[in-house]
């Protein structure tokens, strides 16, 4: 079974440019999350989709960030225009909808991340 895949693995852009990151979750996973790790800091939540709906976008830093999830499948995260402080690693994670007590409860499957460098 394919895991969570993210593209690109690394993107280098100049300040003011636009970048779009893509995440393909595990097939059948309705929950999709975006997280970000900036240098020296902990991984922080950005937003959460359930299918195509934004369940929680309280972690989005500002309106330069736009996330979409087409038809409840893959998701994109666009940064426009990019600023220096946007540099970091963007992780996508997916899980099944209901978190019930079970031996596999609560497992978020993470992708390998997309490293964004803004110069």
């Amino acid at each position: 079974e394919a895991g969570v895949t993210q593209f690109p693995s690394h993107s280098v852009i100049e300040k003011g440019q636009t970048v779009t990151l893509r995440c393909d979750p595990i097939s059948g996973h309705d929950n999709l999350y975006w997280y970000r790790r900036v240098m020296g800091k902990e991984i922080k939540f950005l937003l959460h989709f359930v299918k195509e709906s934004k369940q929680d976008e309280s972690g989005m830093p500002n309106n330069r960030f736009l996330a979409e999830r087409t038809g409840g499948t893959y998701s994109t995260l666009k940064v426009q225009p990019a600023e220096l402080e946007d540099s970091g690693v963007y992780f996508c994670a997916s899980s099944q909808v209901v978190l019930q007590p079970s031996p596999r409860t609560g497992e978020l499957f993470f992708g390998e991340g997309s490293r964004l460098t803004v110069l």
Partner: protein
Amino acid sequence: EDQVTQSPEALRLQEGESSSLNCSYTVSGLRGLFWYRQDPGKGPEFLFTLYSAGEEKEKERLKATLTKKESFLHITAPKPEDSATYLCAVQARTGRRALTFGSGTRLQVQP
């Protein structure tokens, strides 16, 4: 606001030298506490979920325990392949489903 603090930031062990990593947390009602392992250039890999104080989970050389204020990840007789960053995260019982992560402990096990 939910908070997670991990210590130490970095730990160097000799192969076979057992130790423990600490995760202190504050959360408005704990739904679950999660441990992940992260290798360089990779995403976090799930290890354990703990739900209530007194609970313990084991996997190979790793054992996670939970109290009302902290969790420990005990590593028994570690091997070089256990070298990684270990992340702790909490999920609150109410409100959003997102995880709040700590900064992690970088573990290096020398042969």
